[in-house]
């Protein structure tokens, strides 16, 4: 592919247009509609309350994780320890609950605190110690999963019945899990309007320019990881409610899934542009693709291959504008 230092005005125009179209969020929503439609055609009972409910129950952790990952990526970072944080939160909460309902509020708060603390440490390492996000969070992921193994060496623990039954309940005709997802969306809308998000976007877009214009760069970075950790805490709580047990390996795959959800959702992986709305759609698309592969009745050995291939395909499609952009 050719690349030139000097661009013609026409080229610049098209390039600006493509930049604006960068995996546009409406594409993610359209993809979501398509996956829902395909799912519905394969699954005769897709639109029954029970089925919607059981789907939504499994969506919550990834949706929360994807929002957390979005905030980190928007700020120009990445959190490879997100899955390990979720695991740590899961085992801490289950251990603290000891199967009794009175201990639930305390355990939930502790879970969020653990997530926030882990995110804060990631943020301090990246912003103040100035480590590269990929390796720093990569290294802390060992620490979080080691701590998780120390808290709970093998899967188990008791979650009070009333707690996980409540999660699967229906409130005002709408499943509780749907309320939670709505709550997460609301939370994002609030965060989006806060000043800190503008700072995070500025830092992710061009750190030096942000610094020169007086944006508190280090603070914005720390906040993006802190918020990421808090949402990971939320995801961990979702896993506790959904699986009703603790598992020191449960969060592993969520790291990749959360990053994929962010990319499918139209956020630029290098930071500075995008939002969590698309990521939430991306998280649901990923979960629904898993469903489709499961219900399409392909041999069980092919499931993982097809799942992976679809994800790579989605990533490649998101990259097609790059072919036109022709930058070296």
């Amino acid at each position, binding site marked *: *592919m050719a*690349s030139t*230092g000097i661009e013609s005005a026409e080229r610049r125009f098209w390039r600006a247009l493509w930049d604006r179209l960068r995996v546009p969020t409406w594409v993610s929503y359209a993809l979501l509609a398509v996956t829902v439609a395909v799912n519905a055609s394969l699954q005769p009972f897709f639109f029954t309350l029970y089925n919607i409910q059981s789907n939504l129950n499994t969506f919550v952790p990834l949706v929360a994780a994807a929002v957390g990952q979005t905030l980190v990526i928007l700020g120009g970072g*990445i959190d490879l320890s997100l899955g390990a944080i979720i695991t740590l939160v899961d085992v801490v909460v289950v251990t603290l609950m000891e199967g009794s309902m009175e201990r639930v509020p305390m355990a939930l708060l502790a879970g969020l605190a653990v997530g926030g603390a882990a995110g804060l440490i990631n943020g301090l*390492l990246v912003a103040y*110690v*100035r*480590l*590269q996000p*990929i*390796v*720093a969070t*990569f*290294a*802390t*992921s*060992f*620490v979080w*999963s*080691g*701590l*998780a*193994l*120390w808290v709970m*060496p093998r899967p188990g623990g008791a979650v009070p019945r009333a707690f996980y039954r409540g999660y699967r309940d229906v409130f005002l005709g709408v499943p509780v899990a749907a309320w939670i997802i709505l709550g997460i969306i609301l939370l994002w809308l609030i965060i989006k309007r806060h000043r800190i998000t503008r700072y995070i976007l500025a830092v992710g877009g061009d*750190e*030096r*320019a942000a*610094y*020169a214009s007086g944006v508190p*760069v280090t603070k914005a970075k720390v906040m993006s990881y802190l918020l990421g950790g808090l949402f990971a805490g939320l995801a961990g709580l979702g896993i506790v409610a959904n699986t009703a047990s603790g598992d020191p390996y449960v969060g592993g795959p969520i790291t*990749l899934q959360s*990053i*994929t959800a962010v*990319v499918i959702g139209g956020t630029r*992986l*290098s930071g500075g542009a995008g939002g969590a709305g698309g990521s939430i759609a991306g998280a649901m698309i990923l979960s629904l693709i898993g469903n489709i592969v499961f219900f399409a009745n392909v041999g069980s*050995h*092919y*499931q*993982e*291959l*097809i*799942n*992976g*291939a679809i*994800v*790579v395909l989605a*990533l*490649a499609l*998101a*990259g*097609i504008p*790059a*072919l036109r*952009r022709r930058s*070296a």
Partner: protein
Amino acid sequence: MSEPAQALLETQGSRLGRRPLNPVLIAFIIAVLLFVVGELVSPGFAAYSQIINVLRVSSFLGIIAAGQTLVILSGGEGVDLSVGAIVTFGAIIASRVIDGQDSMVLWGLAQALAAGLALGAVNGVLIAYLKVPPLIMTLGMASVVKGLILVYTRGQPSGRAAPIMVRLVSQETIFGIPGILWIWLLLTIVLTLVLRQTTFGRSVYALGANRRTAYLSGIAVQRMVVAVYSLSGFLSALGGFFFLGYTESVFLNLGDRYVLPSVAAVVVGGTSLAGGAGGYVGTVVGSIVLTVLQSVLVTLRMEESGRQIVYGLVLLALLAAYGRQYRLRQ
């Protein structure tokens, strides 16, 4: 002076001024210190035969991390997280084709290497031409390869290593050194020469330093990126083949343990994650450091949880020592 220009100067200044010590040397000293700690905790830890054994175990990580070194050197946020899955796939193919017969070793090796090369090329094409970020592309590739492995084996890997492979990894030659270490030494020399003396090697550094200037100097950037990722797949499969000689039989997550350490070995060896600076000798020392560290932690009878925590903390300490980025002020 305008702020950005000042920041730029600052970057260059700190880059030049910050490395008073050679990271490869630091890593080497750490490796020696770890051997000393091991010897203090458990006498005999640093005996000659034990050192050779630790080096033998390091060689697999070292060979796998060779591809990772090329990828990271080539820059552009380059990293290959599919190495673990490709290691497993290479070992599984070799094991099935060879199935314990010496006469089939070369054929099995060829098939494993071809698969690794092809998968690496797919990574490279999507990264170079479709601009998929390397991190996410190779993570996605890892899950695709895991799927391929399930389809290829139907969940039940078969076959085993040939006696000649086991001898290569375990049997002592002169100075009590097993054949695998000679192969690793040869790879180190060849790769270092290639990186330093050939057009290909210089282009890898040029790519890592600045893609645009590399392009303007006439380097076929995208083709180079494909070549680098292909080589990484190739070397991962090679590592899987040798590791099969060590484990003798295969299992479905055989290579997973190498994904993160392969990146860590490169970083510990002083290669910059931003690309363009470093080399394979550092990675060799880095692989040894990580393997000795694991071995010391096992000798200390530390639980898996404690080992992971210490591993992470040591990695952070090493990164803080020489993996830091510049500061945004005067």
